[in-house]
Protein backbone atom coordinates (compact mmCIF):
# COMPACT_ATOMS: atom_id res chain seq x y z
CA UNK A 1 0.00 0.00 0.00
CA UNK A 2 3.03 2.25 -0.20
CA UNK A 3 1.80 3.63 -3.50
CA UNK A 4 -1.51 4.68 -2.06
CA UNK A 5 -2.29 7.19 0.61
CA UNK A 6 -4.48 6.01 3.46
CA UNK A 7 -7.58 7.60 1.95
CA UNK A 8 -6.99 6.00 -1.42
CA UNK A 9 -6.40 2.64 0.19
CA UNK A 10 -9.74 2.97 1.93
CA UNK A 11 -11.41 3.59 -1.43
CA UNK A 12 -9.98 0.35 -2.67
CA UNK A 13 -10.55 -1.83 0.37
CA UNK A 14 -13.91 -0.61 1.72
CA UNK A 15 -16.07 -2.16 -1.00
CA UNK A 16 -14.55 -5.55 -0.25
CA UNK A 17 -16.31 -5.82 3.08
CA UNK A 18 -18.17 -3.09 4.94
CA UNK A 19 -19.42 -1.28 1.87
CA UNK A 20 -19.77 -4.26 -0.42
CA UNK A 21 -21.76 -3.38 -3.55
CA UNK A 22 -23.84 -6.55 -3.46
CA UNK A 23 -24.52 -7.20 0.20
CA UNK A 24 -24.66 -3.62 1.48
CA UNK A 25 -25.33 -1.23 -1.40
CA UNK A 26 -27.70 -3.71 -3.11
CA UNK A 27 -26.28 -2.99 -6.55
CA UNK A 28 -25.44 -5.30 -9.39
CA UNK A 29 -27.39 -8.31 -8.27
CA UNK A 30 -29.07 -8.73 -11.63
CA UNK A 31 -26.30 -10.45 -13.49
CA UNK A 32 -24.49 -11.67 -10.40
CA UNK A 33 -26.76 -14.56 -9.59
CA UNK A 34 -27.47 -16.29 -12.85
CA UNK A 35 -23.90 -17.15 -13.77
CA UNK A 36 -22.59 -18.40 -10.43
CA UNK A 37 -23.46 -22.07 -10.80
CA UNK A 38 -19.78 -22.68 -11.55
CA UNK A 39 -16.55 -21.03 -10.57
CA UNK A 40 -15.13 -20.35 -14.03
CA UNK A 41 -17.93 -18.16 -15.42
CA UNK A 42 -18.03 -16.32 -12.09
CA UNK A 43 -14.37 -15.39 -12.39
CA UNK A 44 -14.66 -14.39 -16.04
CA UNK A 45 -17.65 -12.24 -15.15
CA UNK A 46 -15.75 -10.64 -12.27
CA UNK A 47 -12.81 -9.79 -14.52
CA UNK A 48 -15.07 -8.40 -17.25
CA UNK A 49 -16.88 -6.19 -14.77
CA UNK A 50 -13.57 -5.03 -13.31
CA UNK A 51 -12.34 -3.98 -16.75
CA UNK A 52 -15.58 -2.17 -17.62
CA UNK A 53 -15.73 -0.43 -14.25
CA UNK A 54 -12.10 0.62 -14.07
CA UNK A 55 -11.97 2.04 -17.58
CA UNK A 56 -15.53 3.37 -17.48
CA UNK A 57 -14.95 5.24 -14.24
CA UNK A 58 -11.82 6.84 -15.68
CA UNK A 59 -13.59 7.89 -18.89
CA UNK A 60 -16.61 9.34 -17.08
CA UNK A 61 -14.36 11.09 -14.59
CA UNK A 62 -12.37 12.67 -17.44
CA UNK A 63 -15.58 13.85 -19.10
CA UNK A 64 -17.35 14.89 -15.92
CA UNK A 65 -17.06 18.61 -16.57
CA UNK A 66 -18.33 18.53 -20.14
CA UNK A 67 -21.32 16.18 -19.79
CA UNK A 68 -24.59 18.15 -19.59
CA UNK A 69 -26.39 16.75 -16.56
CA UNK A 70 -29.67 16.27 -18.44
CA UNK A 71 -28.33 13.68 -20.83
CA UNK A 72 -25.74 12.14 -18.54
CA UNK A 73 -27.54 8.79 -18.31
CA UNK A 74 -27.42 8.34 -22.07
CA UNK A 75 -23.76 9.39 -22.19
CA UNK A 76 -22.95 6.89 -19.44
CA UNK A 77 -24.87 4.15 -21.21
CA UNK A 78 -22.96 4.78 -24.43
CA UNK A 79 -19.62 4.61 -22.62
CA UNK A 80 -20.55 1.37 -20.86
CA UNK A 81 -22.05 -0.17 -23.99
CA UNK A 82 -18.87 0.53 -25.93
CA UNK A 83 -16.70 -1.09 -23.26
CA UNK A 84 -19.03 -4.08 -23.02
CA UNK A 85 -18.94 -4.57 -26.78
CA UNK A 86 -15.14 -4.76 -26.50
CA UNK A 87 -15.40 -7.37 -23.72
CA UNK A 88 -17.99 -9.33 -25.68
CA UNK A 89 -15.92 -9.40 -28.86
CA UNK A 90 -12.75 -10.36 -26.98
CA UNK A 91 -14.56 -13.22 -25.25
CA UNK A 92 -16.08 -14.39 -28.53
CA UNK A 93 -12.63 -14.40 -30.11
CA UNK A 94 -10.64 -16.07 -27.34
CA UNK A 95 -13.11 -18.02 -25.20
CA UNK A 96 -16.02 -18.87 -27.46
CA UNK A 97 -17.43 -21.69 -25.31
CA UNK A 98 -17.46 -19.48 -22.26
CA UNK A 99 -19.10 -16.61 -24.09
CA UNK A 100 -21.86 -18.98 -25.22
CA UNK A 101 -22.30 -20.08 -21.62
CA UNK A 102 -22.55 -16.52 -20.35
CA UNK A 103 -24.94 -15.75 -23.25
CA UNK A 104 -26.88 -12.56 -22.66
CA UNK A 105 -25.31 -11.89 -19.30
CA UNK A 106 -22.23 -10.23 -20.78
CA UNK A 107 -24.56 -7.80 -22.53
CA UNK A 108 -26.34 -7.26 -19.27
CA UNK A 109 -23.16 -5.79 -17.74
CA UNK A 110 -24.39 -2.61 -19.43
CA UNK A 111 -27.38 -2.46 -17.13
CA UNK A 112 -25.48 -3.72 -14.11
CA UNK A 113 -26.59 -1.22 -11.50
CA UNK A 114 -23.13 -1.25 -9.91
CA UNK A 115 -21.64 0.49 -12.91
CA UNK A 116 -24.27 3.20 -13.27
CA UNK A 117 -24.42 3.55 -9.50
CA UNK A 118 -20.69 4.20 -9.19
CA UNK A 119 -20.67 6.56 -12.18
CA UNK A 120 -23.44 8.60 -10.60
CA UNK A 121 -22.19 8.45 -7.04
CA UNK A 122 -18.45 8.72 -7.56
CA UNK A 123 -16.95 9.26 -10.99
CA UNK A 124 -19.08 12.33 -11.75
CA UNK A 125 -17.68 14.12 -8.71
CA UNK A 126 -14.11 12.89 -8.31
CA UNK A 127 -10.73 12.95 -9.98
CA UNK A 128 -9.45 10.34 -12.37
CA UNK A 129 -7.09 8.37 -10.13
CA UNK A 130 -9.57 8.17 -7.27
CA UNK A 131 -12.35 7.14 -9.65
CA UNK A 132 -10.15 4.40 -11.04
CA UNK A 133 -9.47 3.07 -7.53
CA UNK A 134 -13.15 3.27 -6.67
CA UNK A 135 -14.07 1.36 -9.81
CA UNK A 136 -11.51 -1.36 -9.22
CA UNK A 137 -12.45 -1.60 -5.55
CA UNK A 138 -16.15 -1.96 -6.19
CA UNK A 139 -15.64 -4.43 -9.00
CA UNK A 140 -13.41 -6.44 -6.67
CA UNK A 141 -16.08 -6.42 -3.97
CA UNK A 142 -18.60 -7.60 -6.54
CA UNK A 143 -16.22 -10.24 -7.85
CA UNK A 144 -15.49 -11.47 -4.34
CA UNK A 145 -19.16 -12.28 -3.70
CA UNK A 146 -19.43 -13.88 -7.15
CA UNK A 147 -16.44 -16.10 -6.46
CA UNK A 148 -17.68 -17.10 -3.01
CA UNK A 149 -21.12 -18.00 -4.35
CA UNK A 150 -19.63 -19.79 -7.36
CA UNK A 151 -17.23 -21.72 -5.13
CA UNK A 152 -19.93 -23.08 -2.83
CA UNK A 153 -22.43 -23.78 -5.57
CA UNK A 154 -19.95 -25.69 -7.71
CA UNK A 155 -18.37 -27.54 -4.77
CA UNK A 156 -21.63 -28.61 -3.13
CA UNK A 157 -23.62 -28.93 -6.34
CA UNK A 158 -21.31 -30.88 -8.60
CA UNK A 159 -18.36 -31.72 -6.34
CA UNK A 160 -15.94 -29.99 -8.70
CA UNK A 161 -13.88 -26.79 -8.82
CA UNK A 162 -13.08 -25.29 -12.22
CA UNK A 163 -14.52 -28.53 -13.61
CA UNK A 164 -11.99 -30.74 -11.77
CA UNK A 165 -13.47 -33.26 -9.34
CA UNK A 166 -12.16 -32.48 -5.85
CA UNK A 167 -14.33 -34.67 -3.68
CA UNK A 168 -13.74 -37.96 -5.48
CA UNK A 169 -15.71 -39.67 -8.22
CA UNK A 170 -19.48 -39.95 -7.64
CA UNK A 171 -19.82 -42.87 -10.07
CA UNK A 172 -16.82 -44.90 -8.88
CA UNK A 173 -17.63 -44.02 -5.26
CA UNK A 174 -14.16 -42.84 -4.34
CA UNK A 175 -13.08 -40.13 -1.92
CA UNK A 176 -15.89 -38.59 0.09
CA UNK A 177 -18.48 -40.50 -1.91
CA UNK A 178 -17.15 -43.75 -0.47
CA UNK A 179 -18.57 -42.84 2.92
CA UNK A 180 -22.01 -41.99 1.55
CA UNK A 181 -21.64 -38.31 0.56
CA UNK A 182 -23.98 -37.16 -2.21
CA UNK A 183 -23.90 -34.10 -4.44
CA UNK A 184 -26.67 -31.66 -3.68
CA UNK A 185 -28.11 -31.14 -7.15
CA UNK A 186 -30.25 -28.38 -5.75
CA UNK A 187 -27.23 -26.08 -5.46
CA UNK A 188 -26.89 -25.92 -9.24
CA UNK A 189 -30.43 -24.60 -9.68
CA UNK A 190 -30.91 -20.82 -9.97
CA UNK A 191 -32.90 -20.27 -6.73
CA UNK A 192 -30.02 -21.47 -4.59
CA UNK A 193 -27.93 -18.49 -5.71
CA UNK A 194 -30.38 -16.21 -3.94
CA UNK A 195 -30.33 -18.30 -0.82
CA UNK A 196 -26.52 -18.50 -0.75
CA UNK A 197 -26.28 -14.71 -1.08
CA UNK A 198 -28.89 -14.42 1.67
CA UNK A 199 -26.70 -16.55 3.91
CA UNK A 200 -23.60 -14.48 3.09
CA UNK A 201 -25.54 -11.36 4.11
CA UNK A 202 -26.63 -13.10 7.30
CA UNK A 203 -23.07 -14.06 8.22
CA UNK A 204 -21.69 -10.63 7.39
CA UNK A 205 -24.30 -8.76 9.40
CA UNK A 206 -23.98 -11.09 12.36
CA UNK A 207 -20.28 -10.30 12.48
CA UNK A 208 -20.75 -6.56 12.09
CA UNK A 209 -23.80 -5.43 14.06
CA UNK A 210 -23.56 -1.88 12.72
CA UNK A 211 -24.84 -3.07 9.36
CA UNK A 212 -28.13 -4.46 10.65
CA UNK A 213 -31.19 -2.81 9.11
CA UNK A 214 -34.10 -1.46 11.13
CA UNK A 215 -36.67 -3.52 9.35
Amino acid at each position, binding site marked *: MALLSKKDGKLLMDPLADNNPI*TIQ*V*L*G*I*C*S*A*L*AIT*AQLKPSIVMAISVMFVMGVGNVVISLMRNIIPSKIR*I*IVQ*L*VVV*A*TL*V*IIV*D*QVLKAFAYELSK*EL*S*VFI*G*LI*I*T*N*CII*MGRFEAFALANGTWRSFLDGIGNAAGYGLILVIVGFFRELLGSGTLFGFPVLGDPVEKTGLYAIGYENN*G*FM*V*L*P*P*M*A*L*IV*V*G*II*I*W*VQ*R*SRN*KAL*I*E*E*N
Partner: protein
Amino acid sequence: MEHIELFFKSVFVDNMVFAYFLGMCSYLAVSKKVSTAVGLGAAVIFVLTVTVPLNWLLDQYILQEGALTWLGPEYAEYDLSFLSFILFIATIATMVQLVEIVVEKFSPSLYNSLGIFLPLIAVNCAILGGSLFMQSRDIASFDLALNYGFSSGIGWFLAILAIAAIREKIRYSNVPPALRGLGITFIITGLMAIGFMSFGGMLTGGGEETSSLEGEGIGAQIDPTIETTETAEVSTLITQE
Protein backbone atom coordinates in the same frame (compact mmCIF):
# COMPACT_ATOMS: atom_id res chain seq x y z
CA MET B 1 -52.02 -21.19 -29.82
CA GLU B 2 -48.45 -20.09 -30.33
CA HIS B 3 -49.30 -16.79 -28.68
CA ILE B 4 -50.96 -18.36 -25.66
CA GLU B 5 -48.03 -20.70 -25.18
CA LEU B 6 -45.48 -17.89 -25.39
CA PHE B 7 -47.54 -15.82 -22.97
CA PHE B 8 -47.69 -18.42 -20.23
CA LYS B 9 -44.10 -19.46 -20.84
CA SER B 10 -42.81 -15.91 -20.37
CA VAL B 11 -45.00 -15.16 -17.38
CA PHE B 12 -44.47 -18.33 -15.37
CA VAL B 13 -41.78 -20.64 -16.72
CA ASP B 14 -39.20 -18.09 -17.87
CA ASN B 15 -40.14 -15.49 -15.31
CA MET B 16 -37.70 -12.59 -15.53
CA VAL B 17 -37.08 -12.43 -11.80
CA PHE B 18 -37.36 -16.01 -10.66
CA ALA B 19 -35.68 -17.80 -13.54
CA TYR B 20 -33.10 -15.24 -14.68
CA PHE B 21 -32.79 -12.74 -11.82
CA LEU B 22 -33.24 -9.81 -14.15
CA GLY B 23 -34.22 -6.47 -12.70
CA MET B 24 -33.23 -7.55 -9.22
CA CYS B 25 -31.88 -4.15 -8.17
CA SER B 26 -35.13 -2.27 -8.51
CA TYR B 27 -37.00 -5.40 -7.46
CA LEU B 28 -35.24 -5.30 -4.10
CA ALA B 29 -35.16 -1.56 -3.69
CA VAL B 30 -38.75 -0.63 -4.56
CA SER B 31 -40.58 -3.58 -3.02
CA LYS B 32 -41.08 -2.11 0.45
CA LYS B 33 -44.60 -0.88 -0.29
CA VAL B 34 -47.25 -2.48 -2.50
CA SER B 35 -48.39 0.83 -4.00
CA THR B 36 -44.97 1.88 -5.31
CA ALA B 37 -44.32 -1.66 -6.46
CA VAL B 38 -47.48 -1.56 -8.57
CA GLY B 39 -46.41 1.75 -10.11
CA LEU B 40 -42.96 0.51 -11.03
CA GLY B 41 -44.35 -2.80 -12.26
CA ALA B 42 -46.77 -1.01 -14.56
CA ALA B 43 -43.97 1.18 -15.90
CA VAL B 44 -41.86 -1.90 -16.59
CA ILE B 45 -44.73 -3.62 -18.44
CA PHE B 46 -45.20 -0.53 -20.58
CA VAL B 47 -41.53 0.00 -21.39
CA LEU B 48 -40.99 -3.69 -22.18
CA THR B 49 -44.07 -3.80 -24.43
CA VAL B 50 -42.73 -0.86 -26.41
CA THR B 51 -39.00 -1.60 -26.52
CA VAL B 52 -39.00 -5.31 -27.35
CA PRO B 53 -40.95 -4.94 -30.63
CA LEU B 54 -38.96 -1.80 -31.51
CA ASN B 55 -35.69 -3.63 -30.95
CA TRP B 56 -37.10 -6.57 -32.92
CA LEU B 57 -37.52 -4.27 -35.91
CA LEU B 58 -33.97 -2.92 -35.43
CA ASP B 59 -32.65 -6.45 -35.20
CA GLN B 60 -34.51 -7.65 -38.30
CA TYR B 61 -33.83 -4.69 -40.59
CA ILE B 62 -30.45 -3.37 -39.45
CA LEU B 63 -28.47 -5.65 -37.21
CA GLN B 64 -28.76 -9.26 -38.35
CA GLU B 65 -26.48 -10.72 -40.95
CA GLY B 66 -27.99 -9.89 -44.32
CA ALA B 67 -30.60 -7.64 -42.73
CA LEU B 68 -29.53 -4.69 -44.84
CA THR B 69 -30.57 -6.28 -48.16
CA TRP B 70 -33.53 -3.90 -48.32
CA LEU B 71 -30.98 -1.17 -49.06
CA GLY B 72 -29.68 -3.04 -52.07
CA PRO B 73 -28.06 -6.38 -52.89
CA GLU B 74 -24.54 -5.06 -52.28
CA TYR B 75 -25.33 -4.71 -48.55
CA ALA B 76 -26.24 -8.36 -48.11
CA GLU B 77 -22.93 -9.34 -46.55
CA TYR B 78 -22.92 -6.89 -43.68
CA ASP B 79 -23.34 -8.29 -40.18
CA LEU B 80 -23.83 -5.50 -37.67
CA SER B 81 -24.93 -7.66 -34.76
CA PHE B 82 -21.97 -6.50 -32.66
CA LEU B 83 -23.70 -3.13 -32.53
CA SER B 84 -26.84 -4.55 -30.96
CA PHE B 85 -25.95 -3.66 -27.36
CA ILE B 86 -25.47 -0.01 -28.13
CA LEU B 87 -28.55 0.30 -30.37
CA PHE B 88 -30.80 -1.57 -27.97
CA ILE B 89 -29.75 0.49 -24.99
CA ALA B 90 -30.16 3.72 -26.95
CA THR B 91 -33.73 2.76 -27.86
CA ILE B 92 -34.44 1.87 -24.27
CA ALA B 93 -32.97 5.06 -22.84
CA THR B 94 -35.00 7.16 -25.26
CA MET B 95 -38.22 5.32 -24.45
CA VAL B 96 -37.65 5.66 -20.74
CA GLN B 97 -37.09 9.39 -21.11
CA LEU B 98 -40.41 9.53 -22.95
CA VAL B 99 -42.25 7.57 -20.28
CA GLU B 100 -40.78 9.86 -17.66
CA ILE B 101 -42.09 12.95 -19.42
CA VAL B 102 -45.55 11.40 -19.90
CA VAL B 103 -45.82 10.22 -16.29
CA GLU B 104 -44.67 13.58 -14.95
CA LYS B 105 -47.33 15.32 -17.02
CA PHE B 106 -50.29 13.05 -16.33
CA SER B 107 -49.67 11.57 -12.91
CA PRO B 108 -47.50 13.77 -10.68
CA SER B 109 -48.28 11.65 -7.62
CA LEU B 110 -46.98 8.51 -9.31
CA TYR B 111 -43.99 10.53 -10.52
CA ASN B 112 -43.20 11.65 -6.99
CA SER B 113 -43.58 8.21 -5.47
CA LEU B 114 -41.40 6.55 -8.12
CA GLY B 115 -38.86 9.31 -7.67
CA ILE B 116 -35.37 8.24 -8.59
CA PHE B 117 -36.43 4.83 -9.83
CA LEU B 118 -38.04 5.98 -13.04
CA PRO B 119 -34.74 6.91 -14.71
CA LEU B 120 -33.39 3.67 -13.29
CA ILE B 121 -35.80 1.71 -15.50
CA ALA B 122 -33.32 2.54 -18.25
CA VAL B 123 -30.73 0.49 -16.41
CA ASN B 124 -33.19 -2.16 -15.28
CA CYS B 125 -31.71 -5.41 -16.49
CA ALA B 126 -35.17 -6.78 -17.18
CA ILE B 127 -35.68 -4.28 -20.00
CA LEU B 128 -32.39 -4.86 -21.80
CA GLY B 129 -32.64 -8.55 -20.91
CA GLY B 130 -36.01 -8.73 -22.66
CA SER B 131 -34.49 -7.38 -25.87
CA LEU B 132 -31.40 -9.58 -25.65
CA PHE B 133 -33.45 -12.72 -25.02
CA MET B 134 -35.70 -11.74 -27.91
CA GLN B 135 -32.59 -11.62 -30.09
CA SER B 136 -30.95 -14.79 -28.82
CA ARG B 137 -34.16 -16.83 -29.00
CA ASP B 138 -34.87 -15.75 -32.59
CA ILE B 139 -38.45 -14.66 -31.97
CA ALA B 140 -40.04 -15.14 -35.36
CA SER B 141 -42.49 -12.32 -35.95
CA PHE B 142 -43.39 -8.81 -34.87
CA ASP B 143 -46.55 -9.77 -32.99
CA LEU B 144 -44.72 -12.55 -31.16
CA ALA B 145 -42.12 -9.99 -30.09
CA LEU B 146 -44.90 -7.70 -28.89
CA ASN B 147 -46.44 -10.58 -26.97
CA TYR B 148 -43.05 -11.54 -25.53
CA GLY B 149 -42.36 -8.02 -24.27
CA PHE B 150 -45.80 -7.67 -22.73
CA SER B 151 -45.85 -11.06 -21.03
CA SER B 152 -42.33 -10.74 -19.60
CA GLY B 153 -43.46 -7.42 -18.19
CA ILE B 154 -46.46 -9.13 -16.59
CA GLY B 155 -44.16 -11.75 -15.10
CA TRP B 156 -41.94 -9.08 -13.58
CA PHE B 157 -45.00 -7.20 -12.32
CA LEU B 158 -46.33 -10.34 -10.61
CA ALA B 159 -42.98 -10.97 -8.97
CA ILE B 160 -42.56 -7.50 -7.52
CA LEU B 161 -46.20 -7.41 -6.41
CA ALA B 162 -45.80 -10.71 -4.57
CA ILE B 163 -42.57 -9.75 -2.82
CA ALA B 164 -43.94 -6.33 -1.83
CA ALA B 165 -47.01 -7.95 -0.26
CA ILE B 166 -44.84 -10.43 1.61
CA ARG B 167 -42.50 -7.70 2.83
CA GLU B 168 -45.39 -5.64 4.16
CA LYS B 169 -46.50 -8.61 6.22
CA ILE B 170 -43.08 -9.76 7.30
CA ARG B 171 -42.55 -6.50 9.13
CA TYR B 172 -44.64 -7.98 11.94
CA SER B 173 -42.65 -11.19 12.15
CA ASN B 174 -39.74 -11.94 14.36
CA VAL B 175 -36.87 -12.16 11.88
CA PRO B 176 -33.35 -12.71 13.24
CA PRO B 177 -31.79 -9.23 13.44
CA ALA B 178 -28.95 -9.91 11.03
CA LEU B 179 -31.35 -11.18 8.38
CA ARG B 180 -33.74 -8.23 8.57
CA GLY B 181 -34.33 -6.28 5.41
CA LEU B 182 -32.14 -7.47 2.59
CA GLY B 183 -31.20 -10.91 3.87
CA ILE B 184 -34.69 -12.23 4.40
CA THR B 185 -35.83 -10.72 1.10
CA PHE B 186 -33.16 -12.71 -0.70
CA ILE B 187 -34.16 -15.91 0.99
CA ILE B 188 -37.90 -15.39 0.37
CA THR B 189 -37.16 -14.67 -3.27
CA GLY B 190 -35.18 -17.89 -3.41
CA LEU B 191 -38.10 -19.83 -1.96
CA MET B 192 -40.50 -18.16 -4.39
CA ALA B 193 -38.18 -19.06 -7.25
CA ILE B 194 -38.27 -22.68 -6.12
CA GLY B 195 -42.05 -22.41 -6.06
CA PHE B 196 -42.09 -21.01 -9.58
CA MET B 197 -40.00 -23.96 -10.76
CA SER B 198 -43.08 -26.09 -10.29
CA PHE B 199 -44.54 -24.28 -13.31
CA GLY B 200 -41.69 -25.79 -15.32
CA GLY B 201 -43.68 -28.72 -16.63
CA MET B 202 -46.79 -26.65 -17.28
CA LEU B 203 -46.44 -26.40 -21.04
CA THR B 204 -44.77 -29.72 -21.70
CA GLY B 205 -47.19 -31.71 -19.59
CA GLY B 206 -44.29 -32.51 -17.27
CA GLY B 207 -43.05 -35.15 -19.66
CA GLU B 208 -40.13 -33.32 -21.18
CA GLU B 209 -37.33 -31.64 -19.35
CA THR B 210 -37.40 -27.87 -19.34
CA SER B 211 -34.21 -26.34 -20.58
CA SER B 212 -32.73 -24.39 -17.74
CA LEU B 213 -30.19 -21.65 -18.07
CA GLU B 214 -27.23 -23.93 -17.53
CA GLY B 215 -28.48 -26.03 -20.39
CA GLU B 216 -28.43 -29.08 -18.17
CA GLY B 217 -32.18 -29.57 -18.23
CA ILE B 218 -32.23 -29.98 -14.48
CA GLY B 219 -35.39 -27.94 -14.09
CA ALA B 220 -37.77 -30.87 -14.24
CA GLN B 221 -35.78 -33.31 -12.19
CA ILE B 222 -36.26 -32.09 -8.68
CA ASP B 223 -38.01 -34.19 -6.16
CA PRO B 224 -41.65 -33.02 -6.19
CA THR B 225 -41.93 -33.35 -2.42
CA ILE B 226 -39.27 -30.69 -1.91
CA GLU B 227 -41.16 -28.32 -4.15
CA THR B 228 -44.45 -28.72 -2.39
CA THR B 229 -43.00 -28.13 1.05
CA GLU B 230 -41.20 -25.01 -0.14
CA THR B 231 -44.26 -23.60 -1.87
CA ALA B 232 -46.28 -24.36 1.23
CA GLU B 233 -43.71 -22.41 3.20
CA VAL B 234 -44.10 -19.43 0.89
CA SER B 235 -47.85 -19.56 1.10
CA THR B 236 -47.71 -19.69 4.89
CA LEU B 237 -45.45 -16.65 4.68
CA ILE B 238 -48.10 -14.94 2.59
CA THR B 239 -50.93 -15.74 4.95
CA GLN B 240 -48.90 -14.95 8.05
CA GLU B 241 -50.05 -11.96 10.01
